[in-house]
């Protein structure tokens, strides 16, 4: 097989497979990459995202840590300063709260505090998100709480191919990245993943559905992570009703692809933003503020937010009512399409 055909080859993978495949590839590419966290070695991670890494790269580079998130994030700071490329896993994003002081106060600002003495090529991987009947604090969407912290990059893949392309970019990035993986998408999201080198740059949104010319669409939906899939389903429902919906996957919240947002809003004028997080001060609020800054005069109707509610993420029997689904998203799109 020639190199060219190699590079073009793809395979259908779940998002989980794509992540695992990428970790293998990046560890093989760069021997400074270290994977560590709770249950990542012998067990291959509680979801098997790190399966096989221990066998392939040995116990010096794939390390089970004690059950202590702050020191997982905190040692990453020291490892980075030692010249390593740490890829710690926080078993569930909700438990990054235990490491908040290290992530927000230290990881995010090591470069700033030391005025560039140290690069901070840390990629913190963590699954999150609802719909899979997890116990407390396993499903919480916390991206907005991190987005207010300068120095972090916040990356949320919504397809298997992007999981590869964005994770590889994250690991090679000299800045700290929160790489947030949708629990519900791990096995549900399956698509064609390039087998060769595949890098998706940060700050470039992806159009998931929509007309060639955005001006031909009626409403644009901005979403990230699993809500992209939900928005796509909503858009399909509405296609039958003749409402043309553009679905844009933001991919990275920091940096944000303001150009694509502006272009879409200017062309379409009607916007829905979808998030799993609680409404108040979720990242949707920032998007609305950004649209207000960038394209206020193009808006033909208020931007609609579809969010989790301002209640803690609930128990199993209530969660389907909490997390936005295609029906709720479709209703918001319909209202926005029809607004005066």
């Amino acid at each position: 097989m020639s190199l060219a055909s190699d590079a073009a080859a793809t395979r259908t993978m779940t998002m989980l497979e794509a992540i695992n495949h990428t970790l293998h590839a990046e560890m093989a590419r760069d021997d400074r990459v270290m994977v560590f966290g709770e249950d990542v070695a012998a067990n291959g991670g509680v979801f098997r995202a790190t399966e096989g890494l221990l066998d392939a790269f040995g116990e010096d580079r794939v390390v089970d840590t004690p059950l202590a998130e702050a020191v997982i994030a905190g040692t990453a700071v020291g490892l980075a300063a030692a010249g390593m490329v740490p890829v710690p896993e926080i078993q569930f994003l909700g438990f990054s709260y235990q490491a908040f002081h290290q992530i927000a106060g230290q990881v995010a600002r090591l470069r700033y505090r030391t005025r560039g003495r140290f690069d901070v090529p840390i990629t913190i991987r963590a699954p999150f998100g609802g719909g899979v009947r997890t116990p407390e604090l396993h499903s919480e969407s916390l991206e907005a709480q991190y987005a207010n912290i300068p120095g972090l990059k916040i990356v949320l893949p919504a397809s298997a191919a992007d999981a590869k392309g964005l994770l590889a970019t994250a690991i090679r990035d000299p800045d700290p990245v929160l790489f947030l993986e949708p629990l519900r998408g791990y096995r549900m999201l399956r698509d064609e993943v390039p087998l060769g080198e595949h890098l998706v740059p940060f700050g470039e949104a992806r159009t998931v559905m929509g007309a060639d010319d955005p001006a031909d669409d009626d409403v644009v939906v901005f979403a990230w992570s699993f809500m992209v899939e939900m928005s796509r389903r909503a858009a399909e429902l509405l296609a039958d009703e003749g409402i043309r919906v553009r679905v844009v996957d933001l991919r990275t919240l920091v940096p944000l692809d303001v150009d694509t947002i502006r272009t879409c809003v200017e062309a379409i004028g009607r916007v829905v933003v979808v998030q799993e997080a609680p409404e108040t001060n979720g990242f949707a609020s920032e998007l609305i503020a950004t649209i207000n800054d960038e394209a206020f005069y193009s808006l033909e109707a208020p931007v609609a937010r579809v969010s989790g509610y301002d209640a803690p993420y609930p128990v199993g029997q209530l969660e389907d009512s909490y997390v936005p689904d295609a029906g709720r998203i479709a209703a918001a799109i319909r209202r926005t399409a029809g607004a005066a």
Partner: protein
Amino acid sequence: MAVPAAVGQHGVVTIPSLSDETLRSMLTAMLSSRVYSQRVFNLQRQGRAGTNAPVDGSEAILAGVEHALDPSEDWVLPQYRELVGLERFGTDVLDRYVLYALGHPEGGHIPEPTRVWPPQISLATQVPHAVGLAWGMKARSEPGCVLVFLGDGSTSEGDFYEACNFAGVLDAPVIVVVVNNGWAISTPIARQTRAKNFAEKSHAFGIPGVTVDGTDAIAVYEAIADARSRAVAGAGPTLVECVTYRLGPHTTADDPTRYVPGDELAAARERDPIVVMTSELERRGLWTAADTETTLAAADARMDAAVRAGEAMAVDQVELFDHVYAEHTPRLADQRARFLADRGGVS
């Protein structure tokens, strides 16, 4: 890291305070908790319950603890594995745990006057809560003490240390029970700490620490009773490590064959706390195979009823807005109203 030879040997010694009735009650509790746990496990397999963590291996610890405490005065803050073994504190504990496993919001609500908290998922966060509660009881000159459970793995969290250290400074009436079952999911204790054992961690706090054989309900009972008498006498906190072995998977979501050495597990099964206690009580003439039958049948019937009641308990989806605040904030009230309106429109 090994159980000190001096404590918790299997030759159980009768101590005066433990009546035959209590011994029988302890074994009954142990057998029952295993049944309850297996039934909840099976509910998950049948798609009727969420992820849950079986009790297997911890039965003696739970029986020892609940019999050494006074349910009318003392509080228990569990991690997540213990709710099937605290029936002496009230029948609510199991009923609510079943609801919890079923994903029902009321599963978190263990009603007054039962002095048990719901499961804690955010590991070790319950240790500061326990210390605060004990501090509050002391401030109010209330009798009793607080007992908090956490696993060997959870001792690696900062909250455990911060809380035990503060408990020492406060002389808080709290008993911190480390259930050392050898594993934190797939992580063995050797990767969790280099401490000689978990009781040694008490040196960091200047409080007493003891290690007991957690497969021996009577040894656990004695250690807890001792710690309790110190706590209520104002002598402060105690760290009690109970050493056992996790006999099942971590949770319904786990495959321990990936990492648990088979021989280690086989050896642990020889010391199955239920086997140990059953043979001891049989030896003393306090128990027969028929007692086991009766107990298992009663536990099954108890669970039938709990599951039936739990599954029959309806949930109104609008409850997701309740108990966020004492009263809904205007915004939450608004979200709730829209939720009801949308539902009205859709259904």
